[in-house]
């Protein structure tokens, strides 16, 4: 009997052993089968996700460290369909707090697209609104636990950063803006978009905590420090807005630059916009070139260009400050006649009187005496007709017709000499004139003071664009302009400070090819103190309606700006400054 039991037990053991081996073999076969590999791959898809880490956009500061462009938290509000219990209460909350349409939201989340598990209801919701929604959700969740009332279950909040401009409109023309796609438009935001945005990093983030890794850092975008001085910018904006209003101008532009190093201290162009509401851009500007007229709009500058003609004539040896001529009130050239602004004859004039009285006949004579080659060589050296290379987006090129161009005529030599038939941007004009205020050296204008990356600061060095005239010529023309202002009792004079400057009243060409009889551009360019220039100011009022002359329109604006500048830049009156600079 025992023998028989042993045999049965052995038989059963064999059967179980066979089952065991078969089971193990099957497990191994399934484990290493192609189907298993495919399933593993499918599983890996859900084991984690590829996540793109966008670095925080670099901040923008003014030269004193005030933040001009930063970042702030906003929320994407969405709904997880599988967690949603009450679409009615979600639609109601979105309608009450965010002002969305109840019907649209209710229809959207009640009849989601096929396969959808998550729906975005609204992005870029402010922190305040999101907190309000979160508080409502919490309150309703508590009520739901006790009373079973409506709930906002399924409503999700995903935080991210958005560009924010704490100074609102201040410096808007220079800064530009960033859209919700994260792309910079205009100004510094566009020019340095790549640097500010940084480099996004895409990483595989596993859901399995056993495989959790420290995510690589997406280094923050580069911070930029601008040459703009917030206080000067604000003061100039205030003055310009008031001037545009008073003169009923279409727009206004003012640039303040340090002529020694090309740093732009302020740059304003009206109208301005609140950069936090960048979507109003199309309401504010008709053309892209309107955003910052200082660099993007070219116009016939009129008489302000006479300072370049005079500098070229003196530098080339054609005339000296004391050279005189008899002004007959007209000058014939290329089959046409050039007249003075008042159609009058000014008699015997020296070169200082020529500038002081802004005589077109004088300028036409000078250009003619220099000849086309010399004159246009000087204009090219001054950078007329080519961009300055400023580090702002959208700079216009300007236009300088030269002999050989199909639309150049001999009379253009004369008209160009007093600012007609030539187009410049305000910045081009200022850059060219920097040679006069900086001993003959033209500097590259720039708005970037420095950039800060990973704790290191790299400052922008001063770059000389060229030396179109000699230091002697520069000082001579500056002196002539200063004398002209003093003799003519210019409205631009500021007591205690010796300044050099020139007005420009320019007619505006129309599409018909003639000049508009009742529209002008009023400009003024000036710098000071003459013996040691620390600022240059360019003023342009477009189509003012209250007066016909720049000396009554743009000149007072220049004076107001200078009066603010000397205080904000700590520039003492000439007498005190010379005493301080002298030997003790």
């Amino acid at each position, binding site marked *: 009997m025992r023998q028989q039991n042993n045999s049965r037990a052995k038989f059963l053991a064999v059967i179980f052993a066979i089952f065991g081996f078969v089971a193990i073999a099957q497990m191994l076969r399934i484990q290493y089968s192609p189907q298993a590999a495919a399933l593993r791959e499918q599983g890996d898809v859900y084991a984690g996700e590829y996540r793109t880490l966008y670095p925080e956009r670099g901040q923008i500061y003014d030269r004193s460290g005030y933040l001009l462009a930063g*970042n702030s938290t906003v929320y994407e509000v969405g709904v997880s369909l599988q967690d949603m219990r009450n679409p009615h209460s979600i639609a109601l909350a979105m309608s009450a707090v965010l002002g969305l349409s109840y019907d649209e939201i209710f229809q959207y989340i009640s009849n989601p697209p096929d396969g959808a598990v998550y729906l975005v209801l609204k992005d870029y919701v402010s922190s305040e609104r999101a907190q309000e929604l979160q508080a409502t959700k919490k309150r309703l969740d508590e009520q739901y636990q006790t009373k079973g009332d409506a709930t906002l279950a399924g409503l999700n909040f995903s935080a991210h950063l958005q560009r924010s401009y704490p100074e609102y409109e201040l410096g808007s023309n220079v800064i530009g803006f960033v859209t919700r796609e994260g792309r910079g438009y205009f100004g510094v935001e566009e020019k340095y978009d790549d640097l500010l945005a940084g480099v996004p990093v895409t990483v595989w983030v596993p859901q399995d905590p056993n495989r959790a*890794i420290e995510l690589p850092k997406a280094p923050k975008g580069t911070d930029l420090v601008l040459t703009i001085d917030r206080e000067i910018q604000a003061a100039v904006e205030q003055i310009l807005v008031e001037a545009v209003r008073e003169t009923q101008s279409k727009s206004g532009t003012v640039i303040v630059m340090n002529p020694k190093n090309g740093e732009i201290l302020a740059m304003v162009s009206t109208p301005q916009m609140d950069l936090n509401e960048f979507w109003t851009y199309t309401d504010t500007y008709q053309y892209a070139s309107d955003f910052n007229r200082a660099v993007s709009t070219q116009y016939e500058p009129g008489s302000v260009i006479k300072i370049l003609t005079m500098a070229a004539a003196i530098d080339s040896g054609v005339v000296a400050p004391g050279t005189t001529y008899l002004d007959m009130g007209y000058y014939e050239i290329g089959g046409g006649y050039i007249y003075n602004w008042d159609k009058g004859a000014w008699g015997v004039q020296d070169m200082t009187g020529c500038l002081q009285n802004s005589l077109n006949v004088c300028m036409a004579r000078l250009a003619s005496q220099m000849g086309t080659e010399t004159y246009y060589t000087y204009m090219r050296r001054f950078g007329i007709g080519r961009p300055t290379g400023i580090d702002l987006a959208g700079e216009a090129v300007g236009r300088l017709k030269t002999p050989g161009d199909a639309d150049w005529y001999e009379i253009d030599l004369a008209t160009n000499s007093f600012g007609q038939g030539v187009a410049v941007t305000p910045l081009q004009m200022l850059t060219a004139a920097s040679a006069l205020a900086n001993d003959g050296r033209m500097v590259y204008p720039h708005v970037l003071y*420095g950039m800060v990356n990973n704790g290191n*600061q790299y400052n922008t060095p001063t770059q000389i664009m060229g030396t179109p005239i000699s230091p002697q010529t520069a000082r001579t023309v500056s002196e002539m302009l200063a004398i002209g202002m003093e003799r003519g009792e210019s409205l631009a004079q*500021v007591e205690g400070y010796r300044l050099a400057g020139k007005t420009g009243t320019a007619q505006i060409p129309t599409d018909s090819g003639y000049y508009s009889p009742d529209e002008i551009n009023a400009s003024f360019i000036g710098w000071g103190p003459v013996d040691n220039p620390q600022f240059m100011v360019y003023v342009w009022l477009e189509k003012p309606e209250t007066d016909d002359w720049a000396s009554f329109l743009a000149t007072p604006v220049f004076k107001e700006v200078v009066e603010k500048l000397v205080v904000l830049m700590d520039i*003492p009156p000439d007498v005190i400054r010379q005493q301080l600079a002298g030997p003790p």
Partner: protein
Amino acid sequence: MTTTSAAKPGKTKRVFAAYAEAVQTFDSARSMPLNVQRQWVILFAVVIAIVAMVAGLYLDVTARAAITGREIQKLELAIAFSARTNADYETDYARLMSNQVMQARASQAGFEMLDREQVDYMVVPGYLPASGITFASSLAETQSVSGAPEYHESLLTWLAEAAREASAPLGGLR
């Protein structure tokens, strides 16, 4: 004389033979003296205990790794939250200190903008005007902790490196 080739035993037969041998060994083991049997049982129990300890240790390490992983994920969220909060604070502070707000506050406090005529200049010995702002910082972003070699090199490599460093001449290479 005739020879008969021995038939090759089948696979099942061989498995059965091995099983029968094992059963026979087990039977013979049962016939061993009791103290020998006890030693075998103790040995078996010790092996089971060791396996259980290793399994427990593995479970503990796995659980700790999982908890740490969750903490890492939480810390990453906290880092992102802190970065956003810092950005918010900085922007809020800038808004409070903005030119517009400061001018309004100054006006409310009875201050007014200085005019050119109101300024008096005086010589202050040793005074040097500010010559530009510096944002440079020694707190540069460093390499991530897990990027350090201790976190990815093997024990042997680490020991070899430690030995190499220990045997390097003092003062380093010249």
